[in-house]
């Protein structure tokens, strides 16, 4: 570069120019060839926006096709976030203030009863929901028109009488409802900015408002810019608290659920509703509708430019789920349950020695022994799933779930029928008797002389009031010579003490858990796999279990662990009569007795009868009976067992339920069963009864467990009688007179009943039978 000649120097500039162009070309190559896929993706995300419209959930119906859960339209106030933010500061405040005032007033009027939440009726499941687009007005008008013509749509009757629901778990009149808090500009603004709501969709600020408010808002668009009253679909539980634990409820999807349930055919949005418990959860994939989708191409300001029509998907309603439950039977069960609990409340007598009877809970299961269909399933206390519609308020949720307040609400959300684990008491003797037979420890015809006392040692001094070496029958009864049938009928404890102790003494020959192995065949100590979450396994204690359990809880103290963890004849005897560490759920008890009733087949308890396409008979899935296990049950074992259970309810046999069944005409439909009373320290006895009917060709098996309600015959037996007497009257079948429909009178919508009236329907004779 020594020359100063301009002409010689332009080569340098030429080279510079060339390299700059080369650099540009290289970069162009990099962007358009090497990394073009990344940018292609970015461009696609840049230019399209999906608008998702929800599809109605499928319905839930009972075995006869009675709709239990449908969808209803409600009026929701929404604010279009994007349009709203385009308003200037002053008018934003003005709109919110005005709206807050109207909402508060509407709320007050509804509270007073001057206005009612509008219920435009159930939506036909095949009907598509409004597209949440800019044409909302037109659709709203159509919906309004449809409401007028649709007078016969399901309208819930004014609640008369007492609820079974959370509003009134104790039958003490409607739950006190406090006056709603005023809605302010700030609450609305918070709601608008709530990150749970996608800003691309209108943000819902109030649900279940009255039609008057809807009309008021629609007539004054100039006062309420960006505010829309639209009709949305929510869940409607027609029978209120009835069957609540089986039906479950829906709620906003969580991140974890989003991960678990997300799928391409029925995709979820992060503000979707999802089944939380019960069938709503268990059959979520069926009930879930297919959301509609409209894909728009948008410009840089997110304004839709055109629709990409080939990506459009119309919303489709979810499938209908038919349950095996008969809602009318369920009504009988829940009514009987509430009535018996009220009847026992405040009493101090049989089994309620410790304090005044105050049963905190109960569980009832009714099964069809032939196939395992669940005909009714109830848990007390219960709650109204309608509370969860539109999002349960924090106050309401705490009232039924606050762990600090279990004493007050007794955990209505828990399904005691499958999750309540109770010592089964004498109802366990079915399984003990079978185990004794199968382990070759007893013969049906063996006669045992029940003197009311069983001595674990020959030299035991029975004059000592409290001793470890002998055990007495409950109620200090003496039953005299008994065979197996008689031992069951009168509930001889000493017969079974002998079995338990002697099986333990012969452990070297037959194994130390010989009886327990036979018991487990009946499905005890394990979950069944029913379509509900939260099922408890129960427990059949064995020497091994006891040792491990003791080591676990007495880890600090090896000596105590050794002492408390050592099995002996007394523990064995106690186990055989269903006390101590034995635990079973009402479902397991019902299923076990169903098995003995049907000849030894343990079925998987079934809640779902069939799944069909929305509002049509077109079957998607029909459920066939599923066998969990077969219990070898030859006639020479089964007949004495059945005979023993049959005697329990018959007059003149000394049966433990005979008195309570006085006046029950069993000629057409004989009932077999077994009572139980389980004891726990420092509380009243728990009352149990498991029954099946008719004795020799059973069509129903029922178990009832009423916590801390006294002897089996005090609460559980009358409860079961309240169910079985109408059942027997209806011909001892679940099907109606002409073979279809329900055998029972229809349950009222809302599931309401008056506890006083229900109590008056049946008053059992005073009973004295301990078992």
């Amino acid at each position, binding site marked *: 570069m020594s020359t100063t000649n301009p002409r010689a120097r*332009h080569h340098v500039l030429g080279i510079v120019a060339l390299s700059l*162009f080369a650099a540009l070309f290289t970069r162009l190559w990099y962007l*358009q060839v090497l990394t073009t896929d990344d940018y292609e993706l*970015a461009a696609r995300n*840049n230019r399209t926006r999906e608008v998702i419209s929800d599809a109605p959930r499928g319905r839930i119906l009972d075995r006869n096709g009675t709709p239990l859960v449908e969808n209803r339209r409600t009026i929701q106030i929404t604010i279009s976030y994007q349009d709203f933010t385009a308003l200037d500061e002053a008018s934003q405040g003005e709109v919110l203030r005005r709206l807050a005032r109207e909402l508060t007033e509407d709320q007050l009027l509804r509270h007073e009863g001057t206005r009612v939440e509008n219920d435009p009726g159930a939506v036909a499941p095949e009907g598509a929901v409004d597209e949440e687009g800019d044409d909302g007005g037109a659709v709203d008008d159509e919906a309004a028109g449809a409401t007028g013509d649709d007078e016969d749509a399901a309208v819930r009757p004014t609640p008369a009488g007492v609820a079974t629901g959370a509003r009134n778990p104790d039958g003490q009149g409607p739950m006190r409802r406090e006056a709603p808090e005023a809605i302010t500009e700030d609450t609305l603004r918070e709601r608008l900015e709530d990150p749970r709501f996608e800003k691309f969709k209108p943000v819902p600020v109030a649900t279940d408002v009255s039609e008057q408010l809807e009309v008021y808002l629609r007539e004054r668009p100039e006062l309420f810019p960006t505010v829309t009253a639209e009709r949305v679909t929510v869940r409607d539980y027609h029978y209120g608290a009835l069957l609540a634990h089986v039906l479950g409820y829906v709620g906003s999807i969580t991140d974890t659920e989003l991960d678990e349930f997300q799928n391409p055919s029925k995709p979820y949005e992060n503000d979707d509703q999802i089944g939380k418990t019960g069938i709503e959860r268990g059959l979520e994939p069926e009930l879930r509708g297919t959301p509609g989708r409209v894909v728009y*191409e948008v410009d840089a300001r997110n304004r839709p430019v055109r629709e990409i029509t080939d990506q459009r998907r119309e919303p489709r309603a979810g499938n209908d789920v038919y349950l095996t439950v008969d809602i009318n039977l369920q009504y009988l069960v829940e009514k009987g349950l509430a009535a018996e609990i009220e009847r026992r409340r405040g009493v101090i007598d049989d089994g309620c020695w410790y304090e005044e009877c105050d049963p905190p809970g109960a569980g009832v299961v009714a099964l069809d022994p032939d196939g395992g269909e669940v005909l009714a399933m109830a848990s007390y206390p219960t709650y109204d799933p309608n509370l969860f519609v539109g999002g349960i308020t924090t106050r309401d949720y705490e009232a039924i779930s606050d762990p600090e307040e279990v004493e007050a609400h007794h955990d209505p959300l828990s399904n005691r029928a499958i999750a309540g684990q109770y010592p089964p008491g004498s109802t366990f003797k079915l399984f003990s008797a079978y185990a004794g037979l199968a382990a070759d420890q007893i013969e049906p015809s063996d006669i045992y002389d029940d003197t009311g006392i069983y001595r674990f040692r020959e030299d035991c001094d029975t004059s000592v009031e409290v001793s470890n070496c002998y055990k007495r029958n409950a109620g200090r009864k003496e039953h005299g010579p008994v065979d197996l049938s008689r031992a069951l009928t009168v509930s001889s404890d000493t017969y079974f003490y002998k079995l338990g102790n002697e099986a333990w003494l012969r452990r070297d020959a037959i194994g130390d858990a010989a009886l327990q192995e036979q018991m487990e065949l009946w499905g005890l100590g394990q979950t069944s796999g029913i379509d509900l979450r939260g099922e408890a396994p129960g427990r059949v204690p064995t020497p091994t279990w006891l040792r491990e359990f003791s080591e676990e809880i007495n880890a600090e103290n090896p000596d105590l662990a050794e002492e408390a963890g050592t099995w002996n004849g007394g523990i064995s005897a106690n186990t055989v009569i269903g006390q101590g560490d034995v635990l079973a759920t009402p479902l397991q008890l019902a299923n076990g007795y169903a098995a003995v009733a049907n000849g030894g087949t343990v079925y998987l308890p079934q809640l779902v009868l069939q799944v069909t396409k929305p509002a049509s008979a077109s079957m998607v899935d029909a459920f066939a009976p599923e066998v969990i296990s077969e219990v070898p049950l030859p006639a020479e074992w089964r007949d004495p067992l059945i005979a023993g259970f049959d005697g329990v309810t018959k007059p003149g046999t000394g049966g433990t339920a005979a008195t309570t069944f006085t006046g029950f005409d069993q000629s057409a439909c004989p009932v077999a069963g077994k009572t139980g009373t389980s004891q726990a320290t420092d509380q009243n006895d728990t009352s149990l009864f498991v029954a099946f009917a008719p004795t020799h060709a059973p069509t129903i098996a029922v178990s009832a467990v009423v916590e801390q309600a006294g002897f089996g015959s005090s609460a559980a037996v009358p409860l079961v009688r309240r169910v079985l007497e109408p059942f027997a009257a209806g011909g001892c079948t679940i099907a109606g007179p002409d073979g279809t429909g329900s055998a029972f009178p229809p349950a009222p919508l809302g599931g309401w009943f008056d506890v006083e009236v229900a109590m008056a329907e049946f008053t059992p004779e005073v009973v004295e039978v301990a078992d």
Partner: protein
Amino acid sequence: MATVPVSRRRPLTSLRHDPSAIWHHIDGVMVACLLTVSSLGALMVYSATRGPEEPFNAEWVTRQGLFMVLGLLAAGVVAVVDYHKILDRAPIVYGGTAFLLLAVLLVGQSRSGTQGWFQLGQFQLQPSEFAKVALILGFTYVATQFHGDIDLRRLGVLLGVGALPIVLVLLQPDLGTALVSVAITFSLLVAAGVRGRYLVLMGLGAVLFATLVLNSGMLEGYQRERLTVFTSQERPRSQEEARDAAWNLEQSKIAIGSGGVTGKGLFNGPQTRLGNVPEQHTDFIFTAVGEELGLTGAATLLGLYSVIVWRIWRTAKLARDDAGTMICMGVLALFVFQIFQNVGMTMGIMPITGIPLPFMSYGGSSTIMAFIGMGLVLNVHMRRFR
């Protein structure tokens, strides 16, 4: 090749016509390339401004067509008048432009923080565009007086000639034009025959100066942001981030990158059609080419530019005198740097500064200026034998 083939070996006396008649020496290749590129430019302006749906908006492309006609006329005038005569009037052009630059600071219109426009009826005049040509003419006028013999005092004079418009443009502030003017000045210094060691020293000085400027408070916040955003090449992580300084660059890269080899097709680029790239019809017109015509179209465009640059370079070599060479070198620097800067910024290898892509971007002043620059080169080319 040229529409009128001319061989320098042909004996001049054998020609029937005046062999030095300028019409025989028009650079046809260059003219063809110019017309092709500017037509493509109009097409892309239309694509970027027609809107996503019918009825399409043809307002912008109509105006751009008008600018092209005006530009062609201006180029014709500039090409016909002997460049020596033009150079003789360079002081007036230079002085006049300096006056306009001063005036625009006082009475000009402001657009996105830069005060650089005169409102003339419905059109805007951007004097900084013309300052680039004025700079070339003024510099050449002075430098040719020195006949390649440049001592430090003369170097100072030349630097002063370059610095005046640069400072005035920076005051608007129009960083892009200032940077281009620096490139032009440097290139003209090379062409004028400034000693190598001075050039190296000045290069180092410029780097030092730029560093100081970037780190001092002299630049507006947005300018520094735009200058430095290209150094961070990661994708924006969130919508919010995308909305800030990196938004332009990101959308621009998405448009070009998603074009791939063959492009989305004319009028069919979603980024272009939906207006995702800001300033797409002006400074970011290259993204429309990249997205809709792909590597094929963008590389062809760069190829056409290369041909034009080659023809300018060739004219510089063939020019009859130092003045012609320097004019061409100035225009060459103007073009090369402006193309590199503009295309480079759309692809994220140069900072984002508001300068147009010659013959492609929508804009009256820039289009007419580009044609005038080409007119000067054609002028030199036509008169290389006289």
